């Protein structure tokens, strides 16, 4: 009797252990695109502009990455193609917003539509084939358990993203470039007084931000889920915008937030994989609910957000 109970208990424990492991692995797998997009958005917003179009950038670059990998046979060239496509679309955002009286939020919405339209149009022939995928790092090879191995099969872009977050945090604090970007975002008057073109800085920051977000797109189509289809990105680009607010415009906090959101996004599939099909769509909506709750929690009508670039529309 007690043996049976013990077996049942341990089965229960291993079930929840599986879920926890799957969520942990999923946090990295799902969180990697979040990480790159939020770093890109962080850079853009530090320079004083908000790019809602990163949603379109993500879809377009996922398509471009998949196409690049398919045609060249090299996943790394695919990543490059994705980043270049992302940078181009973001450059368009930067240029448009530099025109007088053009609002950056409205432009972002327009690029969201345009990016998705271009991606769906050009990506139509790419839905069937299978492109070369990015290699995975087998950090779970020490374990015998296949669950552990699956959870620790890490996207090779993830360590790159972590290094990038560290680099960005250091660059914002310690380099001339970081200072110029922050100055353009905090006081355009000061930047102008020192002879820097505010629009120029912002165009560069937006373009580089799009480049980074494009790598996130490549992670979607070349690692997980690892194919191209029209439902590939559903709001990850926008979640990243909210995620940057949550991270208070600090690159290292973006890393933590991306993992948190990745874990939330992995909860639905993890529960389904252990046979809990109930509420699949509700669990999939978790990241959106989490974002909204975090925004409600962190925002205040009385003061601007702590740490927000002064010139940013969203915090005024």
């Amino acid at each position: 009797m007690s043996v049976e109970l013990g077996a049942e208990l341990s089965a229960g424990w291993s079930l929840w252990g599986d879920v926890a492991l799957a969520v942990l692995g999923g946090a990295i797998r799902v969180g990697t695109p979040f990480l790159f997009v939020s770093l890109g958005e962080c850079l853009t917003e530090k320079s004083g502009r908000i790019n809602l179009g990163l949603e379109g950038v993500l879809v377009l670059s996922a398509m471009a990455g998949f196409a690049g990998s398919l045609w060249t046979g090299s996943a790394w060239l695919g990543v490059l193609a994705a980043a270049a496509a992302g940078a181009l679309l973001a450059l368009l955002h930067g240029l448009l917003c530099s025109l007088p009286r053009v609002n950056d939020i409205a432009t972002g919405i327009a690029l969201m539509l345009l990016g998705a339209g271009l991606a769906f149009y050009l990506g139509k022939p790419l839905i069937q084939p299978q492109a070369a995928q990015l290699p995975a790092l087998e950090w779970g090879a020490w374990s015998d358990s296949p669950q552990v191995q699956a959870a620790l099969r890490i996207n090779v872009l993830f360590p790159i993203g972590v290094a990038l977050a560290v680099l960005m945090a250091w660059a914002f604090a310690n380099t001339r470039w970081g200072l110029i970007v922050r100055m353009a975002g905090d006081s355009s008057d000061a930047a102008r007084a020192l002879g820097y073109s505010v629009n120029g800085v912002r165009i560069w920051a937006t373009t580089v931000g799009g480049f980074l977000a494009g790598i996130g797109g490549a992670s979607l189509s070349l690692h997980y889920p690892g194919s191209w289809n029209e439902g590939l990105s559903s709001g990850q680009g926008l979640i990243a915008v909210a995620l940057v607010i949550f991270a208070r415009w600090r690159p290292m906090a973006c890393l933590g937030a991306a993992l948190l959101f990745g874990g939330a996004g992995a909860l639905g599939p993890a529960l389904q994989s252990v046979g809990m099909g109930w509420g699949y769509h509700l669990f999939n909506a978790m990241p959106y609910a989490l974002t909204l709750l975090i925004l409600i929690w962190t925002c205040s009508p009385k003061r601007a957000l702590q740490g927000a670039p002064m010139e940013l529309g969203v915090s005024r």
Partner: protein
Amino acid sequence: MSDSRLVSLFDNVMLPVLALAGSLLLFGGFVWLGGASPVEAWVLLFKGAFGDAFSWQNTLQRAAPLMLTALCVALPQRAGLMVIGGEGALVMGGLACAALPYAIELPSHVGGTFMVLVASALAGAAWIALAGVLREHRGVNETISSLLLGYLAIGVFKHLVEGPMRDPASLNKPSTLPLPEGMLLGLIPGQEVHWGLVIGAVACVLAGLWLFGSTHGFATRVVGGNARAARLVGLPSHRLIITACALGGAAAGLAGGIEVAAVHTAANASLIVGLGYTGILVSFVARHNPWVIVPVAILFGGFGAAGSLLQRRLDLPDASVLVLQGFAFVLILAAEAWRGRLGEWLSWRAASAAKSPVHETSRQRLQREALIALKNRKEAA
């Protein structure tokens, strides 16, 4: 006087028309790069939209929900908020419309139709008003929150439609129980278009009357122009903004209800086709003017209707309409930069014609001013 009329004509009519023409041109170039004939694409675009009675009917059918989802952007925008979550309100409206018969016994005639449509409007209103409340009382950016609410709405919708509310008879495509025959929204007598078109157009006209003809609408526009100034003169800005959001949300919710009651007969995934997002574009092209939304919605409904023709005849992907919409949106925003340029140019020309036509360098101007100053000083002395 005629100059200022010319300027406003240029700003309000010519600029959007030029932007739309430019986007058609860009679209032509785009399909040409793909190996299709741009001229043929333009002709098909026109034919598929407005070529014959059938395409007109298709166009108007698609325009009806666009008018309502565009209002969901235009009304909050007039109160100073950029809400882009119309898709969520539409989905919630469709869900409420299909869900009401589960909750209470409804009369199976026009009365029932009226009740499900009211339910859908209320659901949409609550959804967008929530974004307004979060903005006004918690300072949460409404653009992001309304979009997140939209994704949440889709999650809830799919959960209910594929779970608790699923009609066991819907096998391949999970749906709710269909509305009873008598409660469906019928066709306009003598036409092949359902009543939703009339509802949409009337909603736009009424919204315009409210905005431009009533004190409450005027107060809303004042708040949208400058919320702080409005508060200083004693306008209840929070209430006005949330009301505008609720009205916009009601329109989008109604769009969802109409789609269910007139087209799909039950709530299912066919409802989620991006009508809310196209509505954003329609509202921007119409410069957030409810009256202008009606023709613009018909135009974009036409582009949507032509999409399947482009797909069939030229073998273009079904996303080609999305590309066209994307180009149109980008150019409409870029055209903002040329607003007022004609006026500046006319006044500059008038000013330079009045003065001496000789060009003066800054050095010459300084010299001239110095001479005048010297002369003034001598006279004073």
